[in-house]
């Protein structure tokens, strides 16, 4: 009886140990992968045409969904802001509330989550399928570095596209807030705009920009890594894609908290 209990305990400890080793190993491999990408960015040839293709895939192809989400987010913010501020007799500040929320927080975070869901999953699935159909091995057999050829354009495109999409999100979001606030809720156009211009400073814009850049970095790193290390078959691609979206989304939200804390202190 005791022997069985001991063997169960040993087996459980082994499983737990193996689980921890797997996590540590995966974490280490992800950092090595990132290091390889960063080293490869400046290696020749630069292959700008591949970067342009990825900018189109990540940036242009995401813009419609970003615009749609941004417009409605701004509209909701205006409705909620006007309702909350009306309790304090401060509806004049609706414009600044909409703009500050979008620039400092919702613009970068929602853009990142949308891009991760749309383009990140696509990158992971595409690279994963290339992995299981031996296309990555084919590249290596032809003396072409797959990190440089496949990963670098996607990673750099993520870094460039994310701040641009975020800027678009903010502008359209403010537009949506203006249409609802001024057009439907009857707020004064002049007050909406002047309060917004008065409240928003360059430090807010810097804060949003830095966040979107960091989120672009996370997006590229996670989606490329998960695709590149994809397991076997359809199940492998399925698992990699799910893990990519979940990991990147959670990472964005966790990093957002720390970035907000740091940037608020830095720009105070």
């Amino acid at each position, binding site marked *: 009886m005791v022997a069985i209990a001991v063997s169960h305990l040993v087996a459980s400890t082994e499983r737990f140990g193996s689980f921890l080793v797997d996590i540590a190993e995966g974490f280490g491999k992800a950092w090595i992968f990132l290091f390889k990408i960063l080293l490869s960015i400046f290696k020749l040839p630069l292959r700008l045409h591949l970067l342009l293709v990825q900018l189109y895939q990540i940036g242009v192809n995401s813009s419609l969904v970003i615009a749609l989400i941004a417009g409605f987010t701004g509209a909701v913010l205006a409705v909620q802001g006007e309702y909350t501020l009306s309790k304090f007799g401060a509806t004049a500040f609706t414009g600044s509330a909409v703009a500050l929320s979008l620039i400092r927080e919702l613009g970068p975070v929602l853009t990142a989550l949308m891009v991760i869901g749309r383009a990140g999953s696509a990158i992971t699935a595409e690279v994963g399928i290339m992995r299981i159909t031996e*296309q990555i091995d084919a590249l290596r057999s032809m003396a*072409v570095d797959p990190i440089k050829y496949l990963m670098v354009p996607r990673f750099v495109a993520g870094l460039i596209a994310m701040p641009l999409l975020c800027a678009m999100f903010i502008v359209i979001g403010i537009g949506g807030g203006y249409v609802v606030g001024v057009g439907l809720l009857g707020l004064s156009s002049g007050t909406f705009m002047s309060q917004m211009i008065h409240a928003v400073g360059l430090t807010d814009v810097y804060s949003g920009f830095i966040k979107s850049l960091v989120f672009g970095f996370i997006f590229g790193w996670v989606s490329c890594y998960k695709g590149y290390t994809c397991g076997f078959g359809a199940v492998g691609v399925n698992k990699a894609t799910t893990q990519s979206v979940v990991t990147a989304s959670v990472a964005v939200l966790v990093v957002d908290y720390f970035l907000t804390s740091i940037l608020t202190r830095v720009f105070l």
Partner: protein
Amino acid sequence: MISVVNVHKRFGSQVVLDGVSLEIEKGKTTTIVGPSGVGKSVLLKLIMGILNPEKGEVFVCGENITKAETEHERNLIRRHLGVLFQSAALFDSLTVYDNVLFPLVERGEIKCREEMHRMVEEMLYSLSLEDHALSYPEEISIGMRKRVGMARALVTKPDILLFDEPNTGLDPLVGQEVYDLIAESKEKWGFTGVVISHELPEVFQVSDTVVMLLRGNIVMQGSPEDFINTDNAEVQQFLYGRTDGPIRIQ
């Protein structure tokens, strides 16, 4: 042309290759056969330098690919190789023409674009692919995709051509077409061939030497005739696809 010296490879606790040594002669086609999961494709990836052995060395055209310290050094050795993958591994986003052009552009050895296009056109004509030049891989049959894979592997004029299960999943007619293609191409371009297969005895028609892998090592090496006439029970069982015999089906 290729020397595999005492190579050991394992994945986790599973030993795949356990001290394999093999010499592949220049200008000859060596076929590596064995049951599924015996390590044939692993051996091919070791020759390509995509995997590294735990122990042992692999020399390609006299250069040690296992000891190459950087990817750049490995890439220089890989320039001797062309590979036809099991699924052809064509790039979905490129046309047939661009797939064949790809290795020429990426290697950058030929600077003149007209010269590269001439080489691609010649290769497409040689393999009767000219009518499919603008098709995408998804638009052509699997047999045709193998042909394109062959054209892509041959266009850089490699010294060695590796074939990873070239007719797995093909019907007998298309399978025979692939063997004919290998034989014709070898006659025309004179490469050293390494074929991975478990299609016996069909693969013998393109083989000069046959090597059988089992339990992580070579159990027999010889000409196709040696294999047909052998008394080795394991080889006999595998050759004639018998379920009863010394090889346990996994």
